[in-house]
């Protein structure tokens, strides 16, 4: 008789099937366009473009998987790494939902909450983009209006202000050292900016874990 899978096992099984299928589907776009228009890529441009882009983003992706999967839970991770926009959308949405419910992503309830929040966020994003694509002509002058530009340029500060104050105030002892370190690094190291923040996330996570472990062992937490 077949053994009944646990909920978590079935999430992993379905996630694997979906993600690998989606990967193949994503390759379909350049392949199909190439076939329809009977053309091959400009190989030199392809190699140079890939060399300039891929190494950094491949490295960032490995680091993101290692850092974010424990925070997002299983279902949430499979979805997030297909739908993208992790730090500016999926992660805050999941964190906020987990925080409000007072559970961790590794518990079954947390797994369900995180998956629902990320799935709804993905659906809403996809539908808004579809709406934007349909209405692109009337929307372009409105959304590109110079008066709105500063608001959309400051999404991350507006996001992490609200989110940060909740988490930092609840865990202020843990937060002092990493926040101080990151402020010093980002203010005084010019190379650290919006393109390198992805690399600094695991640095922050590892540093915080190290400091927390020492404080925990010394009975300070």
């Amino acid at each position, binding site marked *: 008789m077949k053994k009944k899978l646990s909920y978590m096992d079935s*999430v992993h099984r*379905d*996630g*694997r099937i979906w*993600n690998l299928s*989606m990967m193949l589907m994503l390759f*379909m776009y*350049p392949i199909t*366009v190439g076939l329809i*228009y*009977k*053309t091959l*890529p*400009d190989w030199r*441009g*392809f190699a140079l473009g*890939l060399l*300039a882009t891929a190494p950094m983003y491949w490295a960032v*992706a490995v680091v993101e998987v*290692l*850092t974010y999967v*424990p925070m997002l839970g299983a279902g949430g991770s*499979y979805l997030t790494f297909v739908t*993208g926009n992790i*730090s*500016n959308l999926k992660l805050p*949405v999941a964190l*906020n*939902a987990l925080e409000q419910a007072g559970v961790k992503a*590794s518990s079954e309830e947390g797994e*369900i909450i995180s998956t*629902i929040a990320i*799935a709804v*966020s*993905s*659906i809403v994003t*996809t539908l*808004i983009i579809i*709406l934007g694509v349909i209405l692109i002509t009337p*929307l372009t002058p409105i*959304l*590109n209006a110079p008066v709105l530009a500063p*608001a*959309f340029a*400051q999404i*991350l*500060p*507006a996001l*992490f*202000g609200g989110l*940060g104050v909740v988490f930092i105030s609840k*865990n202020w002892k843990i*937060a002092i050292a990493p926040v101080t*370190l990151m402020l010093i*690094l980002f*203010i005084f190291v010019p190379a650290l900016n919006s393109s390198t923040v992805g690399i*600094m*996330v*695991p640095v922050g996570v590892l540093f*915080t874990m190290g400091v927390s472990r020492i404080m925990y062992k010394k009975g300070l937490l």
Partner: protein
Amino acid sequence: MIDLDFNVNSPVLFVIAGVIVAAVLAQSVYFLVKAWRRGVEIGMGKDKLKRIAITAGVFTIAPAVAIVISVITLAKDLGVPLPWLRLSVVGSLSYETIAASNAESAMGLTFGQVSSLSASQYVTIAWVMTLSIMVGIWLVPLIGKKLQNGIISLENRDKKWGDIFSASMFIGMISAFVGYVFCDFSNVFHGDMSGLIPALVMAVSALIMCLAGLLVKKTQWRWVSDYALPISLVLGMASAIPITGWLA
């Protein structure tokens, strides 16, 4: 076979992109239904699940509009279908721009100033944008389960440390983004006050979150707590308009 003239906004490109976007949507719906059913099964209550879903949906609106703006930006060079697809799947606002710009400059084009693309150039850009972001999508199926089981067994060994470990992950991630908000702060030392803009926007958003917290304590209004984050996000973004006008 008919020879088609290539156009970055050709209907056939919309159809291909549409099919893939529909599959992404299907995956999200599948996981939503699966988690929802399990939630009901273990007694989480439909009201609770509904509240999580609505809060997530409301919170998503402002960042999603920002993504639409990126579609519009990229559409100038690449037409609508490719940016539509790319921003509906793996990637982000900044990634797609960098990948497209690198692919274009590798072929001697300048990002933002491309008036027409050949089919070959278009396919090259699509390949670079697709391949450069493809790691997470297969790495999660490969190591996600092991990674999660590792975290669960760590938390089971020592519950208190498990809680601290989990809080440390979040705090470590948030501290990196708090630091990032100050990345242009050093310009202030050279008299350029625009470096203060992100820090002030973050402060406004944090203040609104604190006020929302106080309001919940005083009034016990649950809905304020549900919508505190989207409200602080939108008001923080709105505050960027006068703050930028003042300091830029």
